[in-house]
């Protein structure tokens, strides 16, 4: 039996695997695709650490900026750990070979991102996440970490509030498999794809780990907090990194005038852009022409390529049409200061978990940092837990149930097209649960969601084959999306105030007396419950 099983092979999962292994555990990583295909590779801007290479910064100022951006909802203690360990985290990445961009003096280069008072984000062109992820993957190869690729998480195996492994669907063979482990680290990513095409995220960000945790009785927190990135391409929702604005890019309205502070935090900026789109002239552009071709090719090569491909526009010469879309989910599996969930042996890290460091609005550059700092913590603690545990769960029942479930889905006829419903869910969420919310729209969305949930038994994969059935996988993802959509909606309805990314037009002020606390959602029997 394994000591530590990591679910998810993005940055958080790989860091956890490396540290669990370094602390003596027998480790394996289960991945829905392959280790370098994770959402982490899409992070462009950078990773925050108060190295003071570009200007005089300090850990204290990093803490202050992060606290301020969190709008009173984060834990000061957790933020202190994040920022204090940030410097060592970046030094560790440098040691394992991450090719950070350099200053003329040979120091790691840093740039300023939105909401930060200093140039704090260490970067590698606009490929920061990609280069970090690949360096981590290479280290995993060096350490001989076992990867089980193309396995889709079905359920956690639990007994008396202890975890003992997971069941997965092997995508290549179509078989349901069992992985037994003394501890499990969930590192499965966020749930921004609830917004389908209105999200910058990879198609895999469907919150599978959160949904599995919820089904197993684990608590989620702050699910209503979804960060909208101010600058995604208008037609395709492809991300244009904050570094474009950090470097001096301007936001222009239809008359070509600037209308806001381009380096304001993402929540404020997305709201300002939406206001301009709805009540200004319908269009907003990012202008980086004045930065010059040489600078754009050196610092933002990926951006230029993507803008040309998707909008048929050369940003060196033309304005880039943009809109804000869902980008990062602050909510997640509730974990304590040891990355431990409320289930014994179950840990959470990365975007799927809520370490209470982002609060109501995440700062750019803090999510890559979170992976490194808390990945280490989760890996080490999962290893320690496993070494002190002798408990073994009964696994037969869950395995049999999940085999039966998959078999039933293969046999069930599909009367309603789930792809159409998935697209409808994205439209509904962007419109009713987006940057601006109110009671009436949220309630209407919840009613529509209940209708979708009721129709779910009439939906299934139409492809009935066993081998590499992505139609079935997408149906399972959709099913998880419906579970999490409910958690987001009941949390958003519960929070009758505006704070960070959660803006209620019917309650536009922040109300610390009633709402300076976390929204907890959990499952009791078949119903989803919430409290604060």
């Amino acid at each position, binding site marked *: 039996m394994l000591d530590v099983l990591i679910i998810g092979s993005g940055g958080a999962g790989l860091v956890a695997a490396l540290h669990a292994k370094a602390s003596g555990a027998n480790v394996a990583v289960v991945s829905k*695709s*392959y280790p*370098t*295909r*994770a*959402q982490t*590779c*899409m992070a462009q801007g950078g990773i925050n650490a108060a190295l003071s290479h570009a200007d005089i910064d300090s850990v204290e100022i990093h803490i202050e900026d992060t606290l301020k951006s969190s709008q009173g909802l984060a834990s000061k203690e957790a933020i202190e750990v994040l920022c204090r360990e940030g410097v060592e985290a970046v*030094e560790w990445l*440098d*040691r*394992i*070979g991450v*090719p*950070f*961009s*350099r*200053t*003329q003096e*040979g120091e790691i280069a840093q740039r300023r991102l939105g909401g930060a008072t200093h140039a704090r984000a260490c970067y*590698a*062109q606009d*490929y920061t996440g*990609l*280069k970090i992820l*690949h*360096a981590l993957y*290479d*280290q995993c*190869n*060096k350490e*001989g970490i076992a990867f089980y*690729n193309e396995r889709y998480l079905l359920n956690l195996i639990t007994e008396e509030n202890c975890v003992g492994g997971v069941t997965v669907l092997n995508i*290549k063979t179509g078989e349901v498999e069992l992985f037994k482990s003394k501890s499990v680290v969930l590192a499965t990513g966020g749930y921004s794809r609830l917004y389908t095409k209105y999200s910058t995220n*990879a*198609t*895999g960000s469907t919150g599978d780990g959160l949904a599995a945790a919820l089904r197993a009785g684990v608590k989620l927190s702050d699910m209503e907090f979804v960060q909208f990135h101010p600058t995604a391409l208008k037609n*395709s929702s*492809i*991300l244009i990194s904050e570094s474009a604005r950090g470097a001096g890019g301007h936001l222009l309205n239809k008359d070509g005038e600037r209308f806001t502070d381009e380096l304001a935090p993402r929540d404020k900026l997305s709201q300002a852009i939406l206001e301009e789109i709805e009540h200004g002239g319908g269009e907003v552009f990012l202008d980086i022409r004045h930065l010059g071709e040489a600078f754009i090719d050196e610092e933002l090569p*990926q951006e230029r*390529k*993507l803008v040309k*491909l*998707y909008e*048929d526009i050369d940003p060196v010469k033309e304005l880039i049409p943009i809109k804000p879309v869902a980008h990062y989910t602050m909510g997640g599996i509730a974990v304590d200061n040891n990355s431990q969930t409320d289930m014994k042996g179950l840990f959470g890290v990365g975007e799927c978990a809520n370490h209470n460091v982002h609060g109501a609005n995440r700062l750019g550059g803090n999510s890559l940092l979170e992976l490194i700092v808390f990945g280490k913590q989760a890996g080490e603690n999962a290893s320690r837990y496993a070494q002190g545990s002798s408990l073994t769960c009964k696994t037969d029942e869950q395995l049999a149930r999940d085999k039966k479930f998959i078999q039933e889905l293969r046999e069930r006829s599909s009367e309603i097209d789930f*792809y*159409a419903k998935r*697209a409808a869910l994205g439209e509904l969420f962007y419109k009713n649960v987006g940057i601006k919310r109110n009671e009436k729209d949220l309630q209407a969305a919840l009613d529509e969601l209940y209708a979708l949930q009721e129709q779910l038994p009439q939906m299934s*994969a*139409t*492809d009935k*084959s066993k*081998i*590499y*059935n*992505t*139609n079935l996988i997408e149906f399972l993802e959709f099913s998880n999306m419906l579970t999490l959509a409910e958690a987001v909606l009941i949390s958003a309805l519960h929070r009758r105030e505006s704070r960070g990314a959660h803006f209620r037009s019917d309650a536009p002020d922040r109300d610390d007396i009633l709402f300076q606390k976390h929204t907890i959602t959990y499952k009791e029997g078949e119903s989803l419950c919430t409290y604060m």
Partner: protein
Amino acid sequence: MHLHVKRADESVTYELESGSETLLALLEKIKTAQDASLSFASDCRSSVCGSCAVRVNGVEVLACAHKPQDGDTVEPLRNLPLIRDLVVDMDRALTCNTVAQAFSSTNSENIKVSQTDEKLNELQSDCILCGACYSACPVYAVNENFIGPFALTRSWRYVSDVREQDVADKINAIQKDGVWDCTLCNECVPVCPQGIAPKQDIVMLRSKSGVLGHMDPNMFGGGGLDFGAVR
């Protein structure tokens, strides 16, 4: 427009409204509106995750970065085990990275990396492991033990890193089924979506191998130069 997709042994033709979408967007349209059984891999749709490499009219491309033309034929990558439709199994090719010891072994903390040093492997570290180069490689096609283009590029990415203290072991690791097996045919270069030239990196590794006392095994014996000796 018409798109021909190779599925197992047959070619299936799909009719679509033509627009300015990427091939990946069209494949998604087929899957969600016409034929849910069509299988392909994708994730980021911004050319950084390496999931969606396929061949169009015989040439390797990323589906998310390709604008298709009427009548295009879409096929899976070659030389990698086919799982279904456009999906190939990358597990074995990925183990080449481990065989090549393409990782940082012992980095010194006290070595300053200058801007020039960082540029030495900036391009190589853009690799997304999409597999296009393995599909195009005629050596990998006939020798499944060949370490192959992306793993050799990754080897050079670490060998050329000024922080790396353990270069000799890495060079040893790529002698057998490695740098000398490449024919320098250049097929891997034009297909790389990131503009990397694995052949060039292999030439650099050969030169480094020479400096460290390794020799081209083909230079002597059967495959070497022939001065016309009477046999």
